[in-house]
């Protein structure tokens, strides 16, 4: 999984990345919505990909990877360092661990957001959000 994440992070760091920039590496389009596109992933470790663009824009806002098998948070921590936890607003929603992947030589950093299982030990969904400098 680390390899996939590194590849996606690299793909999201240029300025103004669009869905079309990412699609060849992600998979085939299942359905297009006004701001997001569901993708059938090429990677067998991912069951679904959802690419959301900024409102009425081609630029990617974030990419959700629904994992086939939950990924231990410790594995992400060893790969990407310390994280902060975001507590959701509503009951029943899972906590999220946020890793800030600094890319000082690139136009954007990338936030890696792990949606956690109820025990808080494993990630069920990984979200990659480019954060332009």
């Amino acid at each position, binding site marked *: 999984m680390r390899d996939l994440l590194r590849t996606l992070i690299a793909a999201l760091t240029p300025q103004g990345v669009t869905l079309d920039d990412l699609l060849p590496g992600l998979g085939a389009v299942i359905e297009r919505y*006004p701001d*997001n596109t569901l993708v059938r992933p090429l990677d067998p470790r991912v069951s679904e990909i959802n690419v*959301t663009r900024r409102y009425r824009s081609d630029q990617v*806002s974030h990419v959700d990877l629904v994992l086939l098998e939950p990924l231990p948070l410790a594995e992400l921590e060893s790969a990407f360092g310390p994280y902060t936890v*975001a*507590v959701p*607003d509503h009951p029943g929603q899972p906590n999220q661990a946020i890793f800030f992947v600094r890319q000082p030589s690139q136009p954007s950093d990338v936030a890696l*957001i792990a949606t956690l299982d109820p025990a808080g030990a494993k990630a069920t969904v990984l*979200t990659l959000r480019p*954060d332009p400098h």
Partner: protein
Amino acid sequence: MTKRLARRQKAFPASRQPRKAEEETPHGRSAPAALAPAPGNLARAPLAARDLLRLQRQAGNRAVSRLVSVRSGAARSRSPHGESNTRQAPAPPQSAAQSDPILYMAPAALVAPASSERTTVAPSGVHARRAVAAGARTVTPGAAAGSAIQRAAEDFGLRTKTSTSAFVSEAVAFWKEAGNKDKPLKDYATFLMDKVNTMLPTTCPSTFVTSGGDSGSFSRVTWSITINTTKFSTNTATDKVGELTADEAAEVADTIYHEARHSEQYFSFAQIMAGEGKDATAIAAAINIPATVAAAAVKVPIKADKKNKAMIAAVKDWGEIGAGVHATYKGLVNGLLDDPEALHRELLGVNAARLAATVAKTGTTIATWKSGPLAGFKAELVRLNQIKKKSKGDKLVTSHTKKIIKLLDAIISTWEGDKTRSAATLRALGKKVVKLDKAVYAAYRDHLHEKDAWATGGAAGKQFRAAAKKKKK
């Protein structure tokens, strides 16, 4: 956020079961030219906190926001199935501007677009309708606070009557329009998102999904509203706009308006942080919002002055519980919402046949509470006691924390001191767990940012229901 409408009726004890709302599908009728901003409410008996929590779990926040604002009254609406219902008569029609004195008092004072996201500042007293019509982004907190007419500190942006009426009138018109009846549900949601995005200080995309328990949910982390149209109706066959009942269509509008309000809350909080001198990086890291949103907020900071003091205090209280110093407390409260109810039901229903199982379950649950929530709340109390000048939100959080700790301590002490483990002692323990359940729910109801979002979305839902009943003149 969960919308499980099919079970809504079951959420109420029979004695307090609301009358079945009459619903009317829109087609064959067209939207009225003007909509009353102050419709009546469903006539329902008062609801206990327990009922509300159960409803919220089963039917979603939107349903609760509607019900908690229930007062009284009666008028009629019509069901496509010929059922009848009693509702309050709507208030006489009044234009949005008439209902909002600030619109008459305040000059338009828009600043030129400040960013690529078309954010503009309305330092005070902006004519919201004109601003929206012009396609501008207005940052309205200062408008309310700076007006010559005083009103509630939180009464800005989406929560103003003007914004609510504008949103609702277009939502109802779309739902009633015959030409839209065969459109997919996502078209309705997209229409609502487009409307609300014209009112927000910074735009928010939608992310449609086909699974998940929520019909709509805002995430400050991704700055998007996730929408699942399969949750729009209790009827699993419903997939077109014309198949949504009035109540369901209102619920969708309520949900999207509520979730959009959360984005407005966090953006306002970011603006205030910017006004206090924090840069975009610091703001993004502090409240877990995207750097792009923090950068937009920094361009339109809100600086404290005499006029906006109350508004800033309100927004800060929302921010602190949403993503600031009280976020951990929020997580503790939200995480404890379900277990007490399950346990007191078990304890109060114990009999000889279930005694061993009940003892085992109680032991497990209480051990979890002792090492988890109780320890967490006690740590929070230490932190809270260090706040010297407490805001309204700080005081609420402190009060609830103390109550919950006291009740948890009492439950644990009673359990650990109970050497008999009889049905009678377990039932006595169950009564204490009921008190805990109520206290946790009361704490949840006092999450100030949710309270504001319930009021904001609830007003939209209420107006929608009233407008949906009107026939074309």
